[in-house]
């Protein structure tokens, strides 16, 4: 059952619903009564994406049409802009791509979900493999439209000694699910899995991650932070599974959110399932309001309330953005954050 299957078959009973435990905060079956028409074919983008100028290679997939296989050869270093565009005439489509990062290669993957259209319904599926000793840093700006429904799913398969660092930045959609599934072999492979959501009006974003540690000596470090305002809803579902035999796993999960209005909501479900011995696993989850004392302190120094709020929220979320390793991408992420908060970067 998935949005992709519903789109390809036209059978709405294939949509995940709130009865599915993993979808109870992001119901699609109750939301989508009729699918829009299939998105027409397009080739290429007319506008530069949010990471323009940073990449040495660009792959554009418009309305689900574009190159489907991307390979980074052994030992190569690449910065790739991967753009999923829902064009102005987008209806319903599934976009798929597969990325192979060969042994010892380094890929900085700058992914953007660009909603030029409005009420489209799309699924984006990525299959990524990171071979032995290879490095992948993935920075995603999910720029869906406020009336759009989207599910973006990445299945990432790591080999021993591989490194994955990921940061998702989103301002949500009408209903937006951002899923990452990591097959973690342990074996000195290391994962950083971060997210930032800034949601206002009636927007929704669901950051769901599943990391399965299959072998010993693996590291996972996860930090997601968000703010919700208006009638927005943020969802964080983080699951880390430490399988039998995955001893000496070092896993950390943090999710922290600020709720800025009475009608906004954050639902969080951190789950650590541990079936191995001698592991170090920790998680922290906090949902609260902006600290009144900090706000008063800043105002006492002369900073007007709106500016003080933006400063404090920016600092709160900035901790995640600062973990992005690629300098150019970090700069773009800071500018994105400033734009969301209406401040200077």
């Amino acid at each position: 059952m998935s949005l992709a299957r519903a789109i390809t078959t036209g059978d709405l009973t294939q949509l995940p619903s709130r009865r599915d435990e993993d979808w109870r905060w992001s119901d699609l079956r109750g939301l989508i009564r009729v699918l829009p028409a299939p998105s027409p074919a397009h080739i290429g983008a007319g506008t530069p994406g949010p990471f323009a100028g940073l990449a040495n290679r660009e792959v554009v997939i418009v309305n689900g049409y574009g190159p489907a296989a991307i390979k980074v050869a052994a030992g190569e270093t690449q910065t790739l802009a991967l753009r999923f565009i829902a064009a102005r005439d987008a209806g319903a489509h599934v976009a798929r791509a597969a990325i192979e990062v060969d042994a010892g290669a380094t890929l900085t993957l700058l992914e953007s979900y660009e909603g030029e259209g409005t009420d489209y319904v799309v699924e984006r599926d990525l299959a990524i493999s990171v071979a032995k000793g290879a490095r992948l840093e993935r920075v995603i700006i999910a720029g869906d439209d406020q009336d759009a429904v989207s599910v973006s799913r990445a299945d990432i398969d790591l080999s021993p000694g591989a490194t994955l660092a990921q940061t998702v930045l989103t301002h949500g959609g009408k209903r937006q699910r951002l899923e990452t599934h990591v097959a973690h072999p342990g074996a000195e492979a290391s994962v950083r899995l971060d997210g930032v959501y800034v949601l206002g009006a009636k927007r929704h974003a669901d950051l769901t991650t599943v990391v399965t540690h299959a072998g010993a000596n693996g590291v996972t470090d996860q930090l997601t932070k968000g703010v919700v305002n208006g009638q927005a809803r943020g969802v964080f579902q983080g699951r880390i599974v430490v399988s039998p035999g995955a001893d000496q796993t070092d896993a950390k999960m943090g999710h922290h959110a600020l709720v800025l209005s009475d009608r906004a909501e954050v639902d969080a479900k951190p789950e650590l399932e541990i079936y191995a011995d001698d592991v170090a696993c920790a998680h922290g989850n906090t949902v609260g309001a902006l600290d009144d004392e900090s706000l008063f302190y800043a105002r006492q120094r002369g900073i007007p309330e709106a500016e003080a709020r933006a400063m404090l929220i920016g600092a709160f979320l900035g901790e995640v953005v600062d973990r992005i390793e690629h300098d150019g991408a970090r700069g773009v992420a800071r500018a994105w954050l400033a734009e969301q908060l209406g401040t200077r970067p």
Partner: protein
Amino acid sequence: MTTMLSINNLHVSIDGKAILDGLTLDVPVGEVHAVMGPNGAGKSTLSYALAGRPGYEVTAGSATLNGDDLLALEPNERAARGVFLSFQYPIEIPGVPALTFLRTALNAQLKARGEAEITAPAFLKLVRAKAAGLKMDFDMLKRSLNVGFSGGEKKRMEILQMAVLSPKLAILDETDSGLDIDALRIVAEGVNAMRGPDRSMLVITHYQRLLDHIRPDRVHVLAAGRIVASGGPELAHELERGGYDQYAKVAA
């Protein structure tokens, strides 16, 4: 002599509970006045009410700064008019470097007063000079505001902010709390360096020892939400000898 701060019959409640009960106090321009009192007398309430902290409800009375109604202004507007509160427990703000915070504050005040913003080089020069006077390590100011600072460093950071923002009225709320004797001396020197004919200070303290370092022009005793006695610096010593109990009856 012109009055800087004039508080008249001030009543303040928190969550419906009356804390200040008709407090009257004038601080002339250029003078340093101490407010002493036992725990629970309303000392911190006085400082927060003057600074405009939300939740401190003024139910009666007035407070003016140079004749302007302070109580009608937002906290940031009061700051821009020249009110500075040195917090008893300075707040930690992770992710905001002290320098960034201070520059944002200074520029916000300048902007509110219709003055030009300070340039980055001029700001750094100003802060370097003031930090040196307080024997502060400049590199510390690149770190998140007050995060990981010791109690003494936080109080020095308060005085540094005061020196850079150059307020007309400085309210020092229990500035001596948490300070060892060396830190107390450095902080007091920083405060004394800012005394001048155009600036007034309200030094709020439980203990007399701070007043050995910051010599007040006048001392007021606050008990049960009111000023119950006023006098010269010698009053602080009398309090040290006789305790606050002698005023409990007056206030009742």
